[in-house]
């Protein structure tokens, strides 16, 4: 009698895919649904659209006509106008002038040009200005005997949700929550909870601001001093995390109660340090360098988030520490009797959770150039929601790091979609909460339907 050779179940099955990647599917469906609902006319106004417009004009009218370019007085519009101008001049068309201003300045320039004896055959503009009263055909006929054509870049239909700017802004807005959710995932996998993360985020921001103002040179603080302030802020958060871990392991206080207490202590400390509810201004110019940094148009916050998620994923799946975290959450006494250093593991996860809140806090300080004692209020609930929607069980022992990223993105996408749909903030709250419940119920049903015998990898 020998045991059958164990072969890994490599068979691809739709069921298993749905179980393993159900929430990713939900995220994609949500994106598709919101995209479908936000399809609108897009009127491009960027330099690329300007060049395209100039090429169309050359094709249509040759090099004969005189062109007047009309845009608003903004930097983006001037870039658009310049692109049209450059392209037209290269193509050999005569540009009689560029107006960047109001309808009034546009009509003024037009009449002046005509009065100076120059012809204007075409006005090149964008969708917005083409709607101006002064640029409609009957009005133009009053100023010029020859008909003047108004041209603009072609419009097209596209979901306003599904633009690079919007998607990046969803990522950027939700990065602090997602980063805090990494630490929270570890804590929840050990069957714990950490309610102090929102307060710790504020504490990190306030400590950054106060230490820069009082100890690290105020306005003269250079990059090194700012980095030091960030370091101090994160250290404070790590220490609070360690205190939480000690309360939970040594004094056997339930995590909910221990971190509830620390949440209030940390929030109070924020107000004391800030000397009230007002934000502490940070005058050092170097403060913004963290938030403002970007690579290929992707902000530092997003990059930091992605790097932290990948690191956490590797730690949780490829190191003994990760295995211990799951073991402690799955069955603490069996873990202890299997030689897992339970106390060290528990203290570590609360330190990691505090550090994640610290990262979110220094990002907040760098973003708003202040230490806001009210930052991160109720963030702990959003962070927990992201973890739970991401499929981590509050019972402990189960959960995936990338599930949490998906969970945070689902919440971000829902919020963005509701904003775009123009839903007011009270209704948003109701819908948001209901959708969280639906997501979790679906997750539970899915687990029941599919054979739970195999642990998904």
């Amino acid at each position, binding site marked *: 009698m*020998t045991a059958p*050779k*164990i072969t890994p179940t490599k068979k691809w099955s739709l069921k298993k895919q749905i179980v393993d990647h159900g929430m990713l599917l939900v995220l994609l469906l949500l994106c598709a649904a919101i995209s479908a609902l936000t399809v609108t006319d897009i009127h491009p106004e960027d330099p690329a659209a300007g060049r395209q417009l100039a090429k169309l004009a050359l094709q249509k009218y040759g090099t004969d006509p005189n062109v007047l370019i009309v845009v608003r007085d903004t930097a983006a519009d001037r870039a658009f106008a310049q692109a049209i101008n450059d392209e037209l001049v290269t193509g050999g068309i005569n540009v009689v002038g560029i107006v960047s201003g109001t309808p009034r300045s546009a009509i003024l320039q037009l009449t002046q040009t005509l009065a100076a004896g120059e012809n204007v055959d075409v006005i090149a503009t964008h969708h917005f200005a083409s709607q101006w009263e002064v640029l409609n055909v009957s009005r133009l006929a009053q100023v010029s005997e020859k008909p003047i054509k108004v041209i603009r870049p072609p419009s097209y239909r596209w979901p306003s949700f599904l633009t690079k700017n919007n998607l990046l802004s969803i990522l950027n807005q939700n990065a602090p929550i997602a980063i805090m959710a990494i630490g929270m995932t570890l804590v929840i996998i050990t069957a714990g909870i950490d309610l102090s993360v929102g307060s710790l985020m504020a504490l990190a921001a306030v400590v950054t601001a106060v230490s820069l103002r009082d100890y690290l040179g105020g306005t003269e603080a250079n990059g090194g001093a700012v980095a030091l302030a960030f370091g101090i802020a994160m250290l404070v958060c790590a220490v609070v995390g360690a205190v939480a871990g000690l309360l939970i392991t040594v004094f056997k206080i339930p995590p909910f109660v221990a971190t509830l207490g620390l949440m209030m202590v940390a929030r109070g400390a924020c107000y004391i340090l800030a000397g009230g509810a007002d934000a502490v201004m940070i005058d050092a110019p170097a403060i913004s360098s963290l938030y403002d940094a970007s690579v290929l148009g992707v902000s530092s916050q997003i990059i930091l988030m992605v790097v932290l998620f990948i690191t956490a994923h590797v730690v949780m799946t490829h*190191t003994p520490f990760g295995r211990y975290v799951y*073991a402690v959450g799955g069955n603490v006494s069996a873990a202890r009797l299997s030689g897992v*250093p339970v106390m060290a593991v528990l203290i570590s996860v609360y330190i990691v959770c505090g550090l994640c809140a610290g990262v979110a806090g220094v990002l907040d300080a760098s973003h708003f150039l202040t230490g806001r004692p009210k930052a991160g209020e109720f963030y702990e609930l959003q962070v927990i929601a992201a973890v739970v929607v991401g499929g981590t069980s509050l019972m402990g022992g189960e959960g995936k790091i990338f599930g949490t990223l998906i969970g945070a993105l689902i919440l971000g996408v829902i919020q963005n979609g509701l904003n775009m749909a123009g839903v007011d903030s009270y209704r948003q709250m109701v819908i948001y909460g209901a959708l969280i419940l639906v997501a979790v119920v679906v997750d539970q049903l899915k687990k029941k339907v599919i054979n739970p015998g195999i642990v998904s990898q």
Partner: protein
Amino acid sequence: MLVTPPLLEIEGLTKSYPGVRALSDVSLTLARGEVLALLGENGAGKSTLIKTLGGVHQSDRGSFKVDGDRVTIANPRAARGLGISIIYQEFTLIPTLKVRENIFLGHGRHWLKPISQKTERTRSIALLNRIGSQIDPDKLCSELSVADQQVVEIAKALALNTKIMVMDEPSAALSPREAEGLFDIVAELRSQEIGIIYITHRLNEVAQLADRIMILRDGEHITTQPAVDLSRDQIIENMVGRSLAEEFPPRCSVIGEPRLQVDGLTRGTAVKNVSFTAHRGEVLGIAGLVGAGRTEVARMLFAADLPDQGTITLDGVVLKLKSPRQAIAAGICLLTEDRKSQGLILTQSTQHNFGLPNLADFSSKGMLVHRRERNSFQHYCDTLNIRISDVHQRAETLSGGNQQKVVLAKWLQSTADVIIFDEPTRGIDVGARYEIYQLLNELSEQGKAIIMISSDLSEVLAMSDRIVVMREGQVTGILDNKSSQQKVTPEDIMRYATSDQSQEQPVVVPA
């Protein structure tokens, strides 16, 4: 003349789970006042059968008749309504409620109807008297012994006018003396015309209690016969599907120098001045009644609890252990009595359970090498004959025997020198038991010292080279079981385990 229909008639019961046929075409009848012993290895379909009868699961096919009337059992409530009660291994009592409150819990009374404490008390006493028990109905259930909790469970079932009572391994957690009390209750219930389905792994109980024996194997009905017609060997043969030459493999280990020396171990009142020595190649049995302090000693050897006094010496080195982690590093390991709550992380994969104490072996530069862990686990699956379909199968889906082997595998990988087994075969079926005994022998032959705590006297007598007997936290005797001249008898052990006069010095039979 009217023929009274049987109390319960099950016909053609079939139930499949994805990939497994748990029951196929099983039929049984049960008469009033009859004890039907339901036997079979783990995974034979016993639990599925009783869960279907109890309304927890729905069968795919098959019919139930109670008193000749065809019934459907859609849920546990419906089962109770038909007079079917199931006493599960895990008790359903609420520890913070009183005995009488537990007895009348969930009785379908209106939620808001006031409860008369006096009526509840008198009715509880009447029910408890019916089974010859004197438990105070105002005691909290948390204050009761396991045996008394079981009595309350039975009283709770009787309060529902139970006609059919199913008992799932009721004696598993009881000491021999407590088990006798249980047998009296079963006999009493039988005389009150209640039909009893009795599930057990202990074959000597079957001979004592059962009118008829029904044997299941791999979901199929093998035989149902009057108890007097089946010998012990025939029962085992029917259960495992082949004949086992013996229940226990022969021991032939050479005992060497002392490995683990325990001196004056004391913790609170549970363990008092315990000393013994386990030798290289020896199986040292520890016998005693439940509560004698055996498990507490094992936990101290493993540093799961720390002793107030006493020393533990391994291979001549005095150990100062502070945690199980250190004990494992020193080469001591413990297979706990309760695998489900202490030995395994049930919701996680078998491979991860196996790897947990051994992650250093499977890491390089701080990173896990999953392939190494997998290969090593595969090796133990082959050598220990662990039957699983996938290394990521959740530990909770394995049978008791396979679970025990997974726990053993993780300790073998950690190269322990001293292996402590606490009730190694509790809840494990006959076939798998034999394999575990063989492993015990092999391990001792490799020079490891094996300490085996067991309440099963035949197991202790068959497997141990020497037997430490404990009573009330003290060692009352250390008996040599290896010399063939004077074999230790169960009566010898019980005498030391229960003797009333307290002895200053343990009786040590020279080895």
